[in-house]
């Protein structure tokens, strides 16, 4: 283990463990009003009339007419209205907000409002969608010839469902006008995203907006774009009332109406010649919901991962993100990759079964290595440690022997083991980091020789305050306690980009390390010094061209192999997890405790995605699984034997050799889990979540 990896007490340990940490709902301001949104109860309708009751003094109704700037939330394409205009496009779309001093009275007023809808036929099923928000294609090799010359062609379709982030703290924002400026604070991953969105909605100058992140109780992507929407609604309300306004979502509201993982349908057509895979023709469909939000970027990542970790010379990938009259989907740890990695890993498994070889053997024959081309004709520039990871997981889980033993079982309890091999591209997809984000980070040395980290990246439980400070302290050669970091405040920190895409530590941590090197050289004891660093794309990167979908989508990759062992009770169709093993290459861990926490949490979240986390809408477009008793996430006792190991594979261009870590552990759990169920029951599975009801169905089919 490297010295930097040794675990440190987290920067926010004391305040969180003592309960002193203040979350947005803990803040109470003088004269503060409480707001609640009135939401559409129809999936698609024209708003004919809104009949308001008489409002008591001090109470306000805030809607589209109060938006002084543009009634659009700035995300990517800016199609999400701050408040609905003439139509509503999904159940839950915000129409207006009622604000006032007493929440009970706000609720009474909300219940007294009558909305007259002229209902229209909604489109709920993504396969029936008419509007294609985004459509990308890429190809390489000669796919036509490969299919013409194939011995066998396999075609299969895979489906994945919603996944809800289920962070502990629900969404919440406070906005307050003061001295001609608007300050917004709350639970968020990306203060500068919120900042830009508010300036646009209020129609004010950037310097008239201040955004402060409060202590945030988890995000997992759910607080990437969504807080921009809520912040615009609350800021418009605060501007109208000219008072502080606070909105905190209830759990059901949060689960039902905030963004979640895109459901997907992927069809794989694969050519095999002489027992080798020669071509893949892949079609991916993502359900965007009613507005575009982050769908283009989610789709891009999904498509880049569509051929998995395999060398496919002849490849065609096409993908669409389509509009349905359902809640807009968005960012969730993995960001499009878990969907296509599930599909490609299952496809490999099914082809192997048809060819009469074990799936791992087939996968090993096609695994990429350093120097190989990526799916988008970029390059794997660095060592790909998959062979040693497979060897280690086999050693830990006894994978190969179990896999063989578990075939053709009878009896009530049937065991199975599955394995997945995957990567996560580190950082922003494509040229976003270079062309859009252009991160800036600063170090400020105070007169007392303490050093403050100034960056807009947020600690959302992933330990970023700690890892940033460790890098700076170690580089400067000063005690960790001498390095300070606060929650980002846009008045004080530069825009170092959002806290997303497993980029913060690798990219912004790298800028801080460079700044620390310079500060060390220029260090003047007792003086105030500010050092600024800006992002520069590494020289080795083959520039990504989005139009051609070609080049290095990521500078480097984090790698992982997972194995999951299950036992299915065929009387109840329930599945017990006997063990889950993950080997992860995240470069050099900057703090081993933090990384272990990330890897274990992510793996468990991935197992939930695969097995129990079920969410769907009914024929009215209403999501019914909107509480923790109906949307089941795994607990620690659901996977008592969880083993996560780190493989040290330093990244030459990351701080201390670190690369992306946060998303990786979720990405490959689902295929490993489902492969294990297949192994136990000798069946083929094409969907997640694969629930006990699904298991019962395949058991009954097998009996008939």
């Amino acid at each position, binding site marked *: 283990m490297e010295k930097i990896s040794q675990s440190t007490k987290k920067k926010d340990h004391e305040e969180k463990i003592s309960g002193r940490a203040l979350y947005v709902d803990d803040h109470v301001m003088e004269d503060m009003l409480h707001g609640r949104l009135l939401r559409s109860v129809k999936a698609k309708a024209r708003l004919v009339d809104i009949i308001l009751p008489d409002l008591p003094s001090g109470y306000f109704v805030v809607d589209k007419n109060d938006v002084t700037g543009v009634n659009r939330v700035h995300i990517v394409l800016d199609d999400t209205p701050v408040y609905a205009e003439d139509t509503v496009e999904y159940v839950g779309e915000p129409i207006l907000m009622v604000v006032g001093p007493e929440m009970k009275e706000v609720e009474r007023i909300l219940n007294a409002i009558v909305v007259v809808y002229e209902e229209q036929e909604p489109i709920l099923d993504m396969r029936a969608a008419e509007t294609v928000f985004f459509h990308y294609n890429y190809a390489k090799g000669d796919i036509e010839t490969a299919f013409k010359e194939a011995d066998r062609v396999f075609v299969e379709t895979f489906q994945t469902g919603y996944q809800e982030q289920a962070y502990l703290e629900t969404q919440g924002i406070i906005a307050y006008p003061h001295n001609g400026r608007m300050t917004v604070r709350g639970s968020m991953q990306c203060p500068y995203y919120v900042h830009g969105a508010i300036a646009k909605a209020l129609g004010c100058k950037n310097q008239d907006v201040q955004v402060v992140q409060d202590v945030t109780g988890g995000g997992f992507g759910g607080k990437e774009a969504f807080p921009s929407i809520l912040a615009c609604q609350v800021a418009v309300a605060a501007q109208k009332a000219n008072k502080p306004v606070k909105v905190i979502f209830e759990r059901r509201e949060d689960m039902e109406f905030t963004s979640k993982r895109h459901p997907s349908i992927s069809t794989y057509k694969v050519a095999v010649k002489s027992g080798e895979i020669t071509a893949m023709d892949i079609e991916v469909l993502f359900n965007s919901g009613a507005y575009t939000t982050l769908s283009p970027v989610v789709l891009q990542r999904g498509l880049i991962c569509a051929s998995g970790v395999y060398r496919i010379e002849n490849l065609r990938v096409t993908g669409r993100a389509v509009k349905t009259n359902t809640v807009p989907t968005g960012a969730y740890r993995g960001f499009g990759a878990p969907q296509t990695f599930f599909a490609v890993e299952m496809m490999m498994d099914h082809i192997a079964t048809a060819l009469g070889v074990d799936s791992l053997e087939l996968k090993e024959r096609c695994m990429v290595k350093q120097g190989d081309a990526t799916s988008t004709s970029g390059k794997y520039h660095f060592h790909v440690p998959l062979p040693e990871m497979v060897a280690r997981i086999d050693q830990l889980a006894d994978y190969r022997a179990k896999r063989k033993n578990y075939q053709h079982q009878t009896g*009530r309890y049937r065991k199975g083991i599955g394995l997945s091999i995957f990567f996560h591209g580190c950082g922003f997809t494509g040229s976003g980091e270079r062309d859009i984000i252009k991160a800036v980070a600063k170090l400020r040395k105070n007169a007392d020789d303490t050093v403050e980290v100034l960056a807009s990246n947020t600690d959302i439980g992933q330990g970023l305050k700690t890892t940033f400070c460790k890098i700076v302290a170690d580089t400067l050669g000063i005690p960790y306690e001498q390095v300070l970091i606060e929650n980002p405040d846009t008045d004080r920190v530069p825009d170092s980009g959002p806290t997303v895409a497993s980029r913060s530590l690798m990219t912004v941590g790298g800028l801080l390390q460079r700044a620390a090197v310079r500060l060390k050289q220029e260090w003047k004891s007792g003086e105030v010094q500010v050092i600024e660093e800006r992002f520069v794309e590494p020289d080795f990167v083959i520039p990504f061209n989005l139009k051609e979908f070609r080049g290095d989508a990521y500078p480097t990759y984090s790698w992982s192999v997972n194995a999951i062992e299950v036992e299915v009770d065929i*009387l*109840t*169709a*329930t599945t*017990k997890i006997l063990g889950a093993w993950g080997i992860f290459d995240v470069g050099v861990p900057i703090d081993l405790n933090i990384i272990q926490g990330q890897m274990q949490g992510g793996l468990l979240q991935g197992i939930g995605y695969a097995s*129990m986390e079920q969410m769907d809408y009914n024929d009215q477009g209403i999501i*019914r*699984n909107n509480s923790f*008793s*109906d949307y*089941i996430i*795994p*607990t*620690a*006792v*659901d996977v008592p034997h969880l083993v996560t190991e780190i493989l040290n594979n330093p990244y030459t261009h990351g701080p201390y050799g670190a690369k992306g870590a946060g998303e990786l552990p979720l990405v490959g759990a689902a295929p490993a889990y489902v492969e294990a169920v297949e192994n136990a029951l000798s069946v083929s599975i094409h969907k997640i979540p694969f629930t*006990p*009801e699904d298991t*019962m169905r395949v058991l*009954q089919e097998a009996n008939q």
Partner: protein
Amino acid sequence: MVNGYLAETLQEALAIRARENVVPYSGGTDLMIEPDEEATYLFIHKIPELKTINEDPEYLRIGAACTFTELLEDARVPGILKDAVAQIAAPAIRNLGTVGGNICNGSPKADSALILFATDAKLRLASTRGERTIPISEFYLGRKKTALQPDELLIEILMSNTGLSNYYYKKVGARNALAISRVSFAGILQVEGGKIINCMTAFGAISDVIIRHKEIDALLVGKTLDEAKTVKKVYLGAYDQAIAPIKGRISAEYRKTVCMNLLRDFLETNGI
């Protein structure tokens, strides 16, 4: 602000219950998730008479305000009840939640109530007017509806002291902790001198109340295991007719299949 009384004796509690419209509050683990500001609560978790477990020649008498943890820690509590209680929620809830609350909440998904149905337990109810002891099956009138009168309290649960050792229990929840039952099944088969002298089964979480069909179970009583095999088909057929799970988040078909699988396995593991 919560309105309520903290009763120190049963007598005091019953007097308040007779006088006023109060919500009995024991562990509160069901009540606290939907707090009612208008309600007046009667806190009964400190009443000594409701906190004891006693044995008499016929029954184990469990105080209604005993927590799940207290049941798990008492050597006299039968294994079938402990197995079920050990799978309720998570430690924090088991430390607070009580068996009486589990029953009076009126849910067909109550895990301890299933066992009490399957063992033909009796409930002792009291009010200032007097006392009555009724079979648990008469206590449940429908979904969230019980026979508890507005002035009554459930004070004791009476479980048979004998005949509960050969049991079968399975809870199917959505995960291994903090899971509400999707299907639950308990069965007891008492065999003496080669003959089945008692068969009791109950199904939870599939209908408005817990399902217990004594008349079907009676088909096996008085028979040897070999004789029981000859009526196995009739027995299972009768349950196949009788069990019609209501539709919920989990399909009726799934729950029906699990019920029948577990019932069959209960017979087969007993050599029938």
